[in-house]
């Protein structure tokens, strides 16, 4: 592997693949905070030029985090499809970018080589790609999953209905759910971030969601986003769990900080499968990720945050998840400073996840201490709609009153569906029409005749 590149009368050297990846990464505050970013614009492009000439096979000879010391590295290398890799063995990273963009490289081809790519190769190629490249290649890939409905089909975009309440107030949550359903959200999942991890509080939320879903006969799944060990306990106690949620990251250290490991995730996955609650499919895992989590857990090994994020997808794909989303702007400006950085990261994460075979969604979001606003979210939402993102978040008025951040709203979801002609998951679409919430052109009904039924059935 070449480590030095001469440009004019200047020469740029990089000690390792890890350093090359970090310095080739588009600028973001988290890499500057970690001290791994390029020190000038010229050095960044020089790193990208050298990276473009690096062979994919070099990534198999240079572990950026040691195999013996990191579980995620072991998973990535142990699960690598070396036979499939023969198809792309001669490519450099720069050639991989070109090949991904070729018209003859279609969705089926990209699916076939998905497991032949390790996350580091995918992260590397993303660093050479412009935003439109990230969108174009991602739009070729359809990663379809199913539980009680089918998510990720062409021409569809699903929404996670996120009815969070700062005190887990049941009536408040029910009111948000009903509002979201009336606006056509909830086909990805109805998923609550609970205010506490307390077992009793969590299970009463699971029961409440299950009861509402049954009463309304909604073809969707529910989830209370609590720690995976709490969910395992609930499953053991026969609580009606649909999806098993966990936040994960791209190093063993960050997963330690989340209190999880491969074996805990595997136990949770098997517990979820054992309930056999899916009707049209059995994808039962839900993962959230986000650039910067490893640095904030001080477990980043000097690796740039986008490469680590992509490694998390290598872990996620071991468990055939129904849903994976990056929570792209949640972590704060010390990792992604402004709208530009958040938009770029959202497109990178979506592309990398899709290419690695994941049913990728994005929580398009920002906090009030980042330099970002609704206009930035509109931009990213529109770009991700074009890129074929599987799902986004739906929160009343985009304002999460529990987590105190802004994401996308039920209205935003209707906007993107209407301008791009996208529809909800087919089973959910039929249900919205059957319940007279949407008409046959998928326009919301002004006075749904069933709305009083929903209110009564939710004890509202």
């Amino acid at each position, binding site marked *: 592997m070449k480590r030095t590149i001469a440009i004019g009368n200047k020469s740029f050297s990089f000690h390792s693949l890890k350093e090359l990846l970090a310095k080739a990464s588009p600028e973001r*505050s988290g890499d*500057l*905070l970690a001290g791994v970013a390029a020190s000038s614009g010229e050095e960044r492009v020089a790193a990208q030029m050298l990276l473009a000439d690096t062979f994919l096979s070099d990534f198999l000879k240079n572990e950026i985090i040691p195999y013996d010391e990191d579980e995620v590295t072991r998973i990535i290398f142990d699960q690598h499809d070396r036979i499939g890799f023969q198809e792309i063995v001669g490519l450099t990273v720069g050639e991989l970018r070109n090949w991904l963009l070729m018209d003859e490289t279609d969705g089926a081809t990209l699916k076939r080589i998905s497991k032949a790519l390790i996350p580091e190769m995918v992260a590397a190629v993303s660093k050479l790609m412009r935003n439109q490249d990230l969108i174009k290649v991602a739009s070729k890939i359809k990663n379809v999953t199913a539980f009680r409905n089918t998510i990720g089909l062409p021409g569809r975009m699903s929404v996670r209905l996120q*009815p969070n*309440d*700062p005190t887990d*107030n049941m*009536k*408040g*949550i029910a*009111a*948000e759910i*009903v*509002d979201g359903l*009336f606006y056509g959200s909830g086909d990805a999942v109805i998923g609550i*971030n*609970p*205010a*506490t*991890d*307390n077992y009793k509080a969590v299970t009463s939320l699971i029961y409440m969601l299950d009861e509402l879903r049954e009463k309304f006969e909604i073809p969707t799944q529910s989830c209370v*986003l*609590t*720690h995976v060990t709490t969910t395992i306990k609930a499953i053991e106690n026969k609580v009606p769990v649909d999806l098993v949620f966990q*936040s994960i990251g791209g190093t063993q250290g960050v997963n330690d900080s*989340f209190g999880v490991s491969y074996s805990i995730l595997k136990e949770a996955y098997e517990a979820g499968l054992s309930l056999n609650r899916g009707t049209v499919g059995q994808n039962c895992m839900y993962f959230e990720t986000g650039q910067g*989590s490893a640095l*904030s857990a001080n477990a980043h090994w000097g690796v740039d945050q986008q490469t680590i994020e992509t490694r998390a997808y290598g872990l996620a794909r071991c468990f055939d998840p129904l849903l994976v989303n990056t929570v792209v702007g*949640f*972590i*704060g*400006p*010390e990792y992604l*400073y402004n709208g530009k950085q958040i938009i770029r990261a959202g497109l990178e994460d979506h592309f990398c996840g899709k290419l690695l075979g994941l049913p990728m969604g994005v929580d398009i979001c920002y*906090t*009030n*201490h980042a330099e970002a*606003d*609704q206009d930035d979210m509109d931009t990213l939402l529109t770009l991700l709609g074009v890129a074929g993102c599987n799902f986004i978040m739906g*929160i*009343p*008025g*985009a*304002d999460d*009153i529990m*987590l*105190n*951040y*802004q994401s996308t*709203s039920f*209205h935003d979801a*209707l*906007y993107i569906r*209407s301008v791009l002609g996208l529809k909800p998951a087919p089973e959910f679409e039929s249900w919205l029409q059957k319940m007279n919430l949407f008409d046959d052109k998928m326009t*919301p009904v*002004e*006075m749904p005749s069933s*709305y009083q039924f929903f*209110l009564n059935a939710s004890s*509202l």
Partner: protein
Amino acid sequence: MNNKKLRTQIDNPWELLREYTQARIAIGRCGTSVPTRELLDFKMCHARAMDAVHIPLDSQKVADEIERVSSEKVILLHSAAPDRSQYLRRPDLGRKLSADSVTTLASLPKATSVDIALVVADGLSSFAVKKNIVPVLDRLIRDLKKNVYTLAPITVVEQGRVAVADEIAEQFGARMSVIFIGERPGLKTPDSLGIYLTFNPKPGTTDERRNCISNVRTEGLVYDQACLKLMYLINEAFRRQLSGVDLKDEQEHQTLTPSNELIQIAY
């Protein structure tokens, strides 16, 4: 002239549900978009939240008011983050004192040891401090004195994060630090004050050794309740000689969800 009023908005028949939640439900729509009134209300909330982050704290004024209600000496300090932009990009700098502030503290005459160092910092909301700190400290200091705790001079830190209190407490030889700090603003909560308590604070102390009281404001956890909770934690921390996860508020066995932990890290 055409007197027919154009229809410009579709209201939702389920508006009555708004009594159950602060969430922005049943806001109506024009086509599938948000009506202008709601759009501008959201913008105003966001503007207020951004202002809370970016408008500097008038620390001299806060110091004067604290001196007036507490008759305690107040010292002005600054973190190693020179300005807001650096503060937001470099959390590590907000956790340390500037060289000038280190000198200021070193030059002060000090008792060999005191019980508690009270620290005030702007954090991510100057509004939170401006609005809440005087009534909170007014109540708290009276309670602390009743319980005969000895206090270090009160400090007000600009561009400070939670851990800056560790260094200050160590300088004063204080057995406990209590820092009052502006929390990351939400759209509906631009002025929420957080309180972090640490027993035996030292630079390098990690967050699991702290106890936190969050959402202190007139529409949230009100001052009397916040002070009651804080006095309970202070008394228990001194009795058991520890703070953090092992010192939970017995009335409230709440642990943080992973997503909440991410918020805490921002401090």
